[in-house]
C-alpha cells in the first residue's frame, strides 16, 4: 500500500473512532440519565458503608498485610539460610526464589501503602473528628500499619544491600531513589526504566478515565469542581514533567 494511502487510513480511523466514541458516549449518557436515581442511591450507600465500616475493613486489610508480610519475611530468611550450603544449579534456583520473594514483598508493601492511606482518607468521618470512636480506631490502625509499612520497607532494602553490597541508599533519606538507581547495573536500570514507562503509559489512561469519572460525578452527583481540579492538576503535572525530562535528556548522556 502506498505511504499516502497509509496516512489516509489513519485519519479515517480517527474519524471512525470519534464517531464510535460519540455514539458510545451518547448511549452512556442516556443510560446515566435513566439510571440516575439508583446510581445516586448506590453511591450514597457505598459512602455510608465506608464511613460506618471503613475502620473494620482497614483493620482486616492491615492484619492480612502484616501476616502476609511476616510469612514472606520468614520464607525469605529460610531460603537465605539454605543459600550457604547450596551450589551450582541448586544455588541459582535458590537465588531466583529469594529474588522473587523480595520482589513480592516490595509489591505488597507498595500496594498496601497506597490502598491503606487512600482508604483511611475515605473512611475518616470529618464531623466530630476527635470524639468519634471509629475515627480513633482508624487512627490506631494508621499508626500501627504505617509503622509496619516503614519498618518492612527498611528491612527489604537492608536485605538486598546485605546480599549485594554495591546497592546504595538509605530508604529513610530523600535522596534514596537517586542513590539506589545510580548503584544499579545496566540490566537493573533497563528494568526500572521499562517498568516506569509502562506505569506512565497506564497512568495516562487512569487519569483520562478519572477525569471522565469526576466530570460525570460533577454532573450527576453535584460533587463540584474539587475532584476535577485535583485530577486535572495530576494529569497536567504528569505531562509537564514528562515533557521537561524529554527535552532535558535530549542532549544528556543516556548511560
Amino acid at each position, binding site marked *: 500500500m502506498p505511504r499516502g494511502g497509509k496516512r489516509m487510513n489513519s485519519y479515517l480511523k480517527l474519524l471512525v473512532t470519534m464517531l464510535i466514541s460519540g455514539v458510545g458516549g451518547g448511549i452512556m449518557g442516556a443510560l446515566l440519565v435513566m439510571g440516575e436515581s439508583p446510581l445516586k442511591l448506590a453511591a450514597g450507600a457505598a459512602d455510608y458503608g465506608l464511613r460506618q465500616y471503613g475502620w473494620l475493613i482497614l483493620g482486616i486489610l492491615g492484619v492480612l498485610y502484616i501476616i502476609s508480610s511476616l510469612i514472606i519475611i520468614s520464607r525469605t530468611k529460610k531460603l537465605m539460610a539454605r543459600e550457604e550450603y547450596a*551450589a*551450582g544449579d541448586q*544455588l*541459582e534456583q535458590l*537465588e*531466583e526464589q529469594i*529474588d522473587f520473594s523480595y520482589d513480592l514483598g516490595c509489591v505488597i508493601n507498595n500496594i498496601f501503602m497506597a490502598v491503606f492511606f487512600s482508604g483511611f482518607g475515605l473512611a475518616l468521618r470529618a464531623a466530630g473528628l476527635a470524639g468519634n470512636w471509629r475515627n480513633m480506631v482508624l487512627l490506631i490502625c494508621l499508626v500501627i500499619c504505617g509503622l509496619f509499612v516503614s519498618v518492612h520497607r527498611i528491612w527489604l532494602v537492608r536485605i538486598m544491600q546485605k546480599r*549485594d553490597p*554495591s546497592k546504595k541508599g538509605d530508604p529513610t533519606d530523600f535522596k534514596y531513589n537517586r542513590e539506589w538507581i545510580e548503584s*544499579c*547495573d*545496566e*540490566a*537493573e536500570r*533497563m528494568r526500572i526504566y521499562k517498568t516506569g514507562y509502562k506505569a506512565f503509559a497506564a497512568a495516562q489512561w487512569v487519569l483520562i478515565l478519572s477525569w471522565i469519572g469526576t466530570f460525570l460525578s460533577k454532573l450527576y452527583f453535584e460533587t463540584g469542581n474539587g475532584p476535577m481540579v485535583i485530577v486535572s492538576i495530576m494529569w497536567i503535572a504528569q505531562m509537564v514533567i514528562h515533557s521537561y525530562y524529554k527535552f532535558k535528556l535530549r542532549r544528556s548522556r543516556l548511560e
Partner: protein
Amino acid sequence: MPLSNRLKEHRARLGVNQAELGKMADVSRQTISLIERGDYSPSVTLALKLAGIFQVSVEDIFTYYEEEQDA
C-alpha cells in the same frame, strides 16, 4: 532476541557461579542470569568486560544472527 551466547559454558570452564562472575564483571547475579537465558543483551562495555574475564574474544561468547523476515 537476535543474540545467542555461550556465557554459561565459559563460566563453567572458569569454575565460578553467577554471583561470582557478576562481582568480577561489576554487575548483579540477576544480570548474569538474564544474559545466560537470552533475556538481556549486554552493552558493548559489559560484553568486552566479560570477554576480558574469560580471556576470549567477544565473538567467542556472543553470536549475532539475523532474524528471518517476511518478504
